């Protein structure tokens, strides 16, 4: 297998490594690209949602009578109406724990309780304002560490989905908020830590932030008794189809999910979100119904996981890390969504890219009474890197070791066992580090600043697995004129997957990428894909598309042979079809499936010799200027380096690195959802600041190292998330370098920096 793929890469010529402009560029710059949020169907109704005002409570009554009296209101819907049509109205990827509308109980402020269907959105909105509900409030739990031992239980009973075999044992469990605990045991942490010359223990926290794609969540459901079509802003149409079919008790072929372009996703639009509600409302209205959120409502849909990470390391006399213990608590919010997967998949790499013989990892997914948490560009890894790369820096500084050389001494390299026990291969850890340091001029003297502006620099490096095992299927159709079409369910949400996949097909068929048509996901025609997530598409769908194109190519060669063409003939493909069918007619269809090998982690030790088909590596160097009178931090320089194997489209790769790093700059420097009693108090773009054009670093470089992924399509591997991992710790390390204060909680806003400076000066500010 590997040899075949090497040979493919050697052949790679005209299409691979070309910065092909986005295939959908013209539609986007002319305003004509289609998004669900702005889509209308004939006869379509719209729905608006009435939401809970309490964080945890039993629903005593819902009064919809005034809302029903508004002219133009067709239906006011509660869970009782839905249950008549969908007997078990619960959904979710890991747990079937989320009711389509609140069922007897509410578990977070903003949870959907009722919905109004009308032909005019203003009428629906007005009617929502007239709904009232009475709750018997229950004590609530908001903090992930408290949730471990709290006597407040978000769910009376756990309801794991059948989807994941390793969660089945949790079914029916009561009296806990722990949705999943992942543990990894390598060597003997306790003994090694006890004997270590130096011991370090720190705790880090990350805040609740959200994806905030500019196209808010939107789904239109068009239900008929013979079949249902959903137009959904979804990153995973295949999964949505499975869930909708399950809710209906139908075979999948009666459920059609269509996805046009996405106004981005970043993980917000994964698995199942508004689709179940839209389905239920269309069943009730017997007409197409659209559910489209406002930006404010996205604060009640899905967020990133806040996280508390307690980390302990033992270091020997030679500066080698001999033991590391990681206790990670993930704040999953009221419904599990994909939190259990985040907990396990991220958990595996919680000890970082370091070769440590004795590792103990506990990673817990917890229910709390806040907006559910899911995957946000990194599947939990940025939260972990924030902790372990801050911790690593603190150790080095305390031991008076160069933070970079301390890392180098402990780094994993190809041929080493990763913590999981898999042997590292094609993971350019040290190359990434060296390129960052080179671009930072790390070995040169550094101007530390004087007066009120002090300068510092920081470094961080990270490793991640890809969500495994997952499957992708692709179909390549060569038409009678020789043009080629790729059918796949990978969703282009701005990352440029359509362009990259067209390049792969073009490479195999020896035609320009620009001539390959990529069909937008539509489960009636595009085959299965696990989801557009976790930087998996270039690798998984890339392989599937490559195989589909190869099969089509081989069938074309076979056709040529059958028609008596000599080997190596360059007869145009269209002529082949004409010769065979006497006119421009017929098709050649190739299909390809890809699923990497995988070994489940041992349930006792969490170890696996094959946990991931490739490793994502990233490193960041940051230079900052800190104003010691205000705590303001200016990012003077940000060097982002990743290992993505072969960059199939260098320009798109650069744009992904840049976008990922800048998005994460917001999570690092200022973004934070504020809460009061479970209520989000800054649910708008006016009060929740995201990066704008004035927040760009002074200089920024976005680079890849020269590397070849032996089992990747043309040597490539994932890109989308990778540049998010290291931004936060690199900047915190630079702040420490500049002014000697260590921040252990995000965001690193001026207030946090200034408070730390005052505390360090022995003049702490009052809290509040």
């Amino acid at each position, binding site marked *: 297998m590997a040899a075949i793929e090497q040979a493919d890469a050697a052949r790679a010529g005209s299409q691979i490594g070309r910065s092909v402009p986005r295939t959908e*560029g013209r539609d986007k*710059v*002319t305003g004509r690209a289609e998004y669900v949020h702005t889509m209308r169907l004939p006869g379509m109704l719209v729905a608006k949602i009435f939401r809970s005002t309490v964080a945890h409570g039993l629903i005593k009554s819902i009064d919809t009578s005034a809302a029903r009296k508004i002219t133009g209101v067709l239906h006011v819907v509660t869970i009782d109406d839905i249950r008549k049509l969908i007997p078990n109205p619960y959904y979710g990827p890991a747990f079937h724990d989320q009711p389509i509308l609140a069922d007897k109980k509410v578990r977070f402020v903003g949870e959907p309780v009722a919905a109004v269907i009308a032909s005019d959105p*203003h009428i629906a909105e007005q009617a929502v304002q007239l709904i009232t509900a009475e709750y018997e409030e229950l004590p609530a739990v908001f903090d992930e560490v408290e949730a471990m031992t709290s006597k407040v239980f978000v769910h009376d009973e756990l309801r794991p989905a059948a989807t994941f075999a390793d969660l089945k044992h949790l079914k029916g469990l009561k009296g806990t908020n722990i949705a999943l605990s992942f543990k990894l045991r390598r060597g003997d942490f306790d003994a090694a830590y006890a004997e270590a010359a130096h011991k370090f223990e720190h705790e880090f926290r990350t805040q609740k932030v959200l994806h905030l794609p500019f*196209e808010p969540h939107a789904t239109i459901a068009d239900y008929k008794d013979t079949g249902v079509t959903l137009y959904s802003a979804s990153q995973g149409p295949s999964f949505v189809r499975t869930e909708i079919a399950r809710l209906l008790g139908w075979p999948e072929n009666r459920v059609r999910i269509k996805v046009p372009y996405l106004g981005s996703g970043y993980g917000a639009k994964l698995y199942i979100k508004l689709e179940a509600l839209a389905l239920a409302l269309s069943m009730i209205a017997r007409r197409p119904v659209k559910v489209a959120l406002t930006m404010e409502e996205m604060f009640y849909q899905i967020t990133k996981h806040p996280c508390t990470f307690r980390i302990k390391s033992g270091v020997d006399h030679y500066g080698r890390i001999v033991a590391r213990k990681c206790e990670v608590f993930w704040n999953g919010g009221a419904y599990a969504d994909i939190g259990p997967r985040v907990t396990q998949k991220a958990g595996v790499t919680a000890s970082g890219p370091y070769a440590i013989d004795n590792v103990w990892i506990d990673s817990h997914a917890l229910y709390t009474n806040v907006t559910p948490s899911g995957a946000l560009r990194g599947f939990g890894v940025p939260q972990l890197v924030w902790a372990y790369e801050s911790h690593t820096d603190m150790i080095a500084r305390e031991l008076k070791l160069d933070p970079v050389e301390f890392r180098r001494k402990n780094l994993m390299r190809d041929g080493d066992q990763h913590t999981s026990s898999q042997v590292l291969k094609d993971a350019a850890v040290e190359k990434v580090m060296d390129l960052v340091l080179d671009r930072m001029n790390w070995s040169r003297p550094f101007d530390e600043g004087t007066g009120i502006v002090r300068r510092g620099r920081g470094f961080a490096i990270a490793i991640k697995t890809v969500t495994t095992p997952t499957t992708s299927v692709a179909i390549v159709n060569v038409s009678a004129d020789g043009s080629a079409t790729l059918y796949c369910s990978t969703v282009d949400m701005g990352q440029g997957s359509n362009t990259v996949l067209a390049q792969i097909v073009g490479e195999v068929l020896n035609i320009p990428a620009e001539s390959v048509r990529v069909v937008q996901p539509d489960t009636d025609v595009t085959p299965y894909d696990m989801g557009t997530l976790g930087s998996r598409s270039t690798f998984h769908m890339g392989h599937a598309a490559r195989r589909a194109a190869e099969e089509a190519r081989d069938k074309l060669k076979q056709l040529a042979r059958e028609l008596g063409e000599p080997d190596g003939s360059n007869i145009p493909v269209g002529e082949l079809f004409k010769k065979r069918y006497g006119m421009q007619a017929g098709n050649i269809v190739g299909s390809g499936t890809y699923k990497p090998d995988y070994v489940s982690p041992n349930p006792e030790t969490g170890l696996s010799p094959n946990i991931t088909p490739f490793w994502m590596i990233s490193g960041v160097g940051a230079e900052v200027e800190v104003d010691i009178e205000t705590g303001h931090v200016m990012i003077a320089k940000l060097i982002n380096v990743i290992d993505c194997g072969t960059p199939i489209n260098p320009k798109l790769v650069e744009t992904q690195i840049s976008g990922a790093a800048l998005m994460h700059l917001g999570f690092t420097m200022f973004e934070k959802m504020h809460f009061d009693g479970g209520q989000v108090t800054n649910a708008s773009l006016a009060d929740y600041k995201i990066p704008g054009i004035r927040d760009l670093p002074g200089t920024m470089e976005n680079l890849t190292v020269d590397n070849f992924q032996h089992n990747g399509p043309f040597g490539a591997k994932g890109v989308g998330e990778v540049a998010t991992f290291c931004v936060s710790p690199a900047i915190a390390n630079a702040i420490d370098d500049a002014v000697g204060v260590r921040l252990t909680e995000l965001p690193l806003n001026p207030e946090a920096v200034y408070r730390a400076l005052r505390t360090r000066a022995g003049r702490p500010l009052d809290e509040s």
Partner: protein
Amino acid sequence: MSPQRVIHFTLNGAAAAAIVEPHHNLIELLQAQFGLTGAREACGQGLCGCCTVLVNGRAVSGCLYLASFVDGADVATIEGFDVSNRLSPEQEAFIETGAFQCGYCTSGFIIMVSQLLDKHPDPSDDQIKHYLSGNLCRCAAYPEIIEAVKLAARKRKARAATMARA
């Protein structure tokens, strides 16, 4: 619900009429009655720029601008920028520099860039940031957008020179 009103205005160069209610905003008017979805509501507060539309040559936030206010006005949207199927210099520049990812905010950016270049044919980085500070891009294509503005400025001049020669 509320009294309706007939308004008359120019939309991308053509005479247009519509029946609007007092609470309808410009985005609803364009999307519901004219099928123009290039200007889109995202934040709903006039802060992100996704809903940018030109009214009498001035960029406005369509999500805050009442539809009835365009009575008698000249309204231009992104859909009117590629006259006779030829992309504007700004549109070409956005494609060539890869100045977008998901594309949701792109219409608004392109309209603001055209405003910027009308006023400042050779914009400095500061002028670019000043003009575009009211447009947000969650994919954060800002470095490419700055590059696109500079390329668009060159393209405009090249087109002007070609027209002058013709």
